[in-house]
């Protein structure tokens, strides 16, 4: 375990160091906006904090670098199964700016390995409601173990305990805060905007010296 690499002396120094000296820690969630929205990717304020020069990388075990690749050395817990994806970053309580809920909640480590999608569900085609009510947080499907046919009856078995579950939030920011707090890898999918072309029936009868215009209605 990488946790046991540090010595007692460095651990004591760690505890004595004030917060201002500690290098900032990234909650390593990947943020990709999945649409043609022009909103730039949200950059957390802690990302711009500087690492003090005198603390080399090996000396600052609190500096958890932002990872984009799977971390194969994470300690597993009893809920880890053969279906669990390899996590990129596991919260260890030293994250700055957020409450490390994953450390105290007792939730399985697997949840920090699973990607989560935050989106606004589209308007149902069966109703004319124009209001979009709640943001939803949904777990991505497992690569393996998502679903297989049960030998007994041919029913669908799954190794995924969050299969078919979702969370709802009133705003996008609340959902993002929750995902960061719990250490989930998340991405935000912006809702599609409804197009509307202004049309006037009178435009069908406009005079044109050349060929008649075709007014696209869609």
């Amino acid at each position, binding site marked *: *375990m990488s*946790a*046991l690499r*540090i010595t007692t002396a460095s*651990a004591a120094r*760690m*505890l004595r160091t004030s*917060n201002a000296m*500690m290098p900032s820690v990234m909650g390593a969630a990947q943020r990709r906006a999945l649409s043609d929205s022009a909103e730039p990717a949200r950059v957390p304020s802690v990302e711009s904090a500087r690492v003090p020069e005198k603390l080399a990388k090996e000396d600052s*075990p*609190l500096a958890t670098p932002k990872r984009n690749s*799977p971390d*194969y050395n*994470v*300690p*597993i817990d*009893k809920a*880890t*199964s*053969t279906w*669990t*994806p*390899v996590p990129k970053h596991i919260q*260890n*309580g*030293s994250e700055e700016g957020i*409450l*490390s809920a994953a*450390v*105290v909640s*007792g939730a399985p480590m697997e949840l920090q390995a699973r990607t989560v999608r935050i989106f606004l569900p589209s308007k149902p085609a069966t109703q004319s409601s124009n209001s979009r009510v709640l943001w939803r947080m949904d777990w991505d499907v497992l*690569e*393996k173990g998502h679903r297989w046919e049960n030998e007994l009856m041919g029913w669908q078995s799954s190794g995924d305990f969050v299969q078919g579950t979702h969370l709802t939030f009133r705003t996008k920011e609340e959902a993002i805060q929750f995902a960061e707090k719990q250490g989930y890898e998340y991405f935000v999918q912006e809702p599609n905007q409804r197009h509307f072309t202004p049309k006037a029936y009178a435009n069908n009868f406009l005079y044109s010296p050349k060929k008649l215009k075709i007014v696209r209605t869609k």
Partner: protein
Amino acid sequence: MPITPTKYAITTRQSANWSDAKRRVFALYRRWLRSTPEMQSMYSLPLPISVIRTRIRQEFERNRFVNKLPVVDVLLTKGHADYQETMNFWRQTTHMMSYFNEESFRGAKRLPSSFIDGFLQGRN
């Protein structure tokens, strides 16, 4: 009553500062270590006491890098609650054994050790 429900119960409290928290963590750690022989006999664990103590140490080490006092307080509360549950025999052998890797299918190798290993397992 043979078992008093409030036996081993500790009232929740907030640590005044880091040295207070450190003292409480060590006290909890000692509690767990001193009761390991009793746990081994209660739950009939087929493991030497040293292995159980190493596992307890590993659980404490997992939270070594916490740098917020409230988080430490919550972890202490949970640690004391777990101790109470264990010593009051509210758990079963299976709950204790689930902390040890050899009891799980594939043991400690439930995650692949590298990309190639995962690829050959069929994880995409």
